[in-house]
């Protein structure tokens, strides 16, 4: 069964078993190996026939060849060598678990999922006398279910009742050919293992936890022979001990870009930034970067693009009133993918958030990545609050770049096919042109040149900021650090500026950081409250470069692959 088969915040079998053991459940003796030699050593230490199990996040490992049996340490080394570095159902095998083989008397199933039904809204414990198979195929009469009142917990009595409903004590004795007293004992152990499983579920903030099979061995032990635990995404921060890098859902392990994207989200709680790489290798072209606003409309819009023959390098989303800085970082990741042939933002939703923040965030990313990509196709559909203003900002900003772009508003939310066809046409036009080296290709060339000269740090297509800093020797600069970055004002370049673009921008879009004194911008609040006051709207920088004298830069560091 797969309560939540595709969660990234999942534990490997060996991690799960470690937690079960700490909770008092028996697990097979064994150890985890990353090399054939380690496998050999573990098997040698166990000194008995072993199972070699690929550690991958998928069910049906046995059928897929991910579990091997070995009688000797040499055989274990051989099995590990075959499994390690290979793939099981598309998952790379980086570790194998070496365990003693168990002599089974019977296989049970124990699991917990969360039932979201309004009649339940609780963890539901499941127990079956028919384990080892997909629990969904188990007939109802062999399956006991118990919704748990989370305020009361799950106690041994509850567990006993569950076990009892399927298996009488006498039957247990008969089933395992044990005297009645031993049967009774064994029966209590079975109930205790359900209680322990519930404790594990609670302790690690699991979304689901299951042991399948929970086996009774011929010598009368109850042992968790396999286990699958997935941790609730929103609780991962409470469990650094679990070492989860990207608490996000996918049926593939996170890529380097996915990990970088998660850092954006992790470092800034305001609004949602979501990123999933769909095509790990976009070199060769033909892919577009996809970016959406609003989860519900985002899926619909992605479907529409694919239906119209576009290939998506990624799926990204910024929703829930993110700062412009967060939008920038997300768009920057999208646009930093190698060899893209277009960028498409479909905000197919009447969003309540002020959309001009998206406009500023996007423009910052566009200006960093598209200044030397003539003809690069850009489509932005943005709707909702401050829609017209956002479109106007984008129109003005995109007009300063050599790209081909089209902008759409709310009238197109329900005409996505039209927008998708335009994207397709623009991509085809762009590809038919003799386009210059792509960002990726240029980066390679630059990196090679740099290696020769050894003077510069190598250029990365994802370097956080392209502006050359500082601007000239002896420049007087002021720095205003905010939560996720820093404003840098080059005072010399301010001289003679009458625009006050930065002050106006901050009071219209941002947090009223600046004031005017003697015709000059000054910081109007104490430096130490900037992090609290600054809304990271990025408008001051944009307006300064557009209408002022380019004296103000915002540094927005990012974790990059």
């Amino acid at each position, binding site marked *: 069964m797969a309560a939540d088969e595709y969660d990234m915040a999942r534990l490997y079998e060996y991690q799960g078993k470690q937690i079960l053991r700490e909770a008092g459940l028996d697990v097979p003796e064994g150890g985890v190996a990353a090399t054939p030699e380690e496998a050999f050593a573990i098997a040698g230490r166990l000194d008995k026939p072993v199972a070699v199990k690929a550690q991958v996040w998928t069910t049906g490992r046995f059928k897929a060849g991910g579990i091997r049996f070995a009688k000797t340490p040499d055989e274990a080394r051989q099995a590990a060598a075959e499994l390690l570095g290979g793939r099981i159902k598309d998952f790379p095998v980086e570790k194998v678990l070496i365990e003693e083989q168990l002599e089974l008397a019977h296989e049970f199933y124990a699991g917990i999922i969360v039932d*979201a*039904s*309004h009649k339940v809204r609780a963890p539901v414990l499941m127990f079956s006398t028919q384990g080892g198979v997909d629990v969904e195929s188990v007939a109802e009469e062999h399956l006991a279910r118990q919704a748990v009142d989370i305020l009361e917990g799950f106690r041994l009595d509850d567990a006993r009742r569950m076990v009892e409903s399927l298996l009488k004590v006498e039957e247990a004795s008969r089933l395992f050919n044990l005297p009645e007293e031993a049967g009774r004992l064994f029966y209590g152990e079975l109930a205790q293992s359900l209680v322990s499983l519930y404790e594990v579920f609670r302790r690690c903030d699991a*979304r689901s936890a299951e042991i399948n099979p929970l086996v009774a061995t011929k010598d009368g032990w109850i042992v968790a022979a396999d286990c699958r635990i997935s941790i*609730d995404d929103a609780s991962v921060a*409470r469990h650094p001990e679990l070492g989860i890098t990207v608490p996000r859902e996918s049926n593939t392990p996170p890529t380097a870009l996915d990990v970088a994207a998660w850092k954006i989200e992790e470092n800034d709680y305001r609004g949602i930034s979501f990123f999933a790489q769909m095509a790990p290798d976009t070199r060769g072209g033909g892919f577009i970067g996809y970016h959406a606003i609003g*989860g519900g409309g985002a*899926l619909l819009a992605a479907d529409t693009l694919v239906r119209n023959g576009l290939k998506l390098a990624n799926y990204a989303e910024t*929703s829930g009133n993110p700062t412009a800085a967060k939008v920038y970082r997300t768009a920057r990741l999208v646009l930093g993918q190698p060899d893209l042939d277009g960028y498409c933002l479909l905000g197919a939703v009447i969003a309540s958030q002020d959309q001009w923040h998206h406009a500023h965030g996007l423009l910052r990313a566009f200006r960093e990545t598209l200044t030397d990509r003539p003809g690069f196709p850009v489509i932005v559909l943005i709707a909702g609050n401050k829609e017209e203003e956002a479109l106007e900002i984008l129109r003005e900003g995109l007009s300063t770049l050599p790209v081909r772009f089209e902008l759409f508003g709310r009238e197109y939310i*329900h005409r996505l096919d039209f927008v998708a066809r335009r994207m397709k046409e623009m991509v085809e036009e762009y590809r038919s042109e003799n386009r210059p080296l792509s960002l990726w290709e240029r980066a390679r060339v630059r990196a090679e040149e740099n290696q020769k000269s050894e003077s510069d740090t190598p250029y990365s297509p994802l370097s956080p900021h392209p502006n050359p800093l500082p601007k000239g020797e002896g420049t007087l600069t002021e720095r205003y650090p905010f939560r996720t970055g820093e404003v840098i004002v080059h005072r010399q370049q301010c001289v003679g500026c009458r625009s006050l673009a930065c002050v106006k921008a901050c009071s219209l879009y941002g947090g009223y950081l600046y004031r005017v004194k003697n015709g000059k911008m000054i910081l109007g609040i104490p430096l130490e409250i900037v992090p609290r006051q600054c809304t990271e709207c990025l408008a001051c920088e944009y307006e300064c470069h557009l209408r002022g004298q380019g004296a103000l830069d915002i540094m927005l560091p990012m974790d990059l692959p």
Partner: protein
Amino acid sequence: MAILLDENTKVLVQGITGREGSARSRFMAAYGTRIVAGVTPGRGGTMVGSFPVYNSVHEAVGRHGAFDATVTFVPGLMVKEAVVEAVDEGIPLIVMPVERVPLHDALTLLAYARRKGTRVLGPGSFGLISPGRAVIGWIGGSEDFANEIFRPGHVGVISRSGGQTSTLSWAIGRAGLGISTAMHVGGEPVVGLSPAELLPLFESDPETHAVALFGEIGTVAEEEAAEVIAAGRFTKPLAAYIAGAGVRPGMRFSHASAIVERGRGTAENKIKVLREAGARVVERPEDLAPAMAEMLIAN
């Protein structure tokens, strides 16, 4: 009338001194919501705009008497305590606009609220709005925008997608209809008030003539709504759209609740049971508002 919220609903704001808490309070009050006070532990005695701030819900109730609703602009990791406090003070409706609430906290606070008979909208709810009367949550954004998108009228809107609550309400306005109350039930894996519980409220609201439902794959929310209709507990016209039919099973993207679990929660199944119960289910989102208009005329 409307359901759950109108201009007389007396509202408390928990987390009122935060960025969102203060900005949203200003907007909600400007729109017409009866915001009376706010709570932020440790900031009692200060003011946010014209709203007094208290250290606890207990203190606020002591000063202002009972509240009809509270909204929690409190970060996910800390929101459980805020909800327990509101439940203990007997506030009958808690709106939770907060996303990323740890699952076990959500289960605990929902169980606690259920024991005391408290209604919870969310967690992860964009909020609710009774156009022309009052709003709670993020929904609406600003006064002008809310007035432009949400027209008063007789259609109830229930949405499992936050953004689509507004989009659908806007489309309903363009189809010449208006909204009695619109709400987002929340996008978290487990949420409080479900379509199945909201439909009977709309049933007993004389001002609501029909309901539009924006559904989504995952959970059994639409299946349970169909049960309510089949049982005769909701008899008004219902038009629905289910998003995510094209999504391959298991791919959850950012909607934590949109996962097909144990064979339940597929778009196919939802569409089938809703139709069997007598609801009209459209194939494309743009068809939902026109279908609603047709049904109301036919009625």
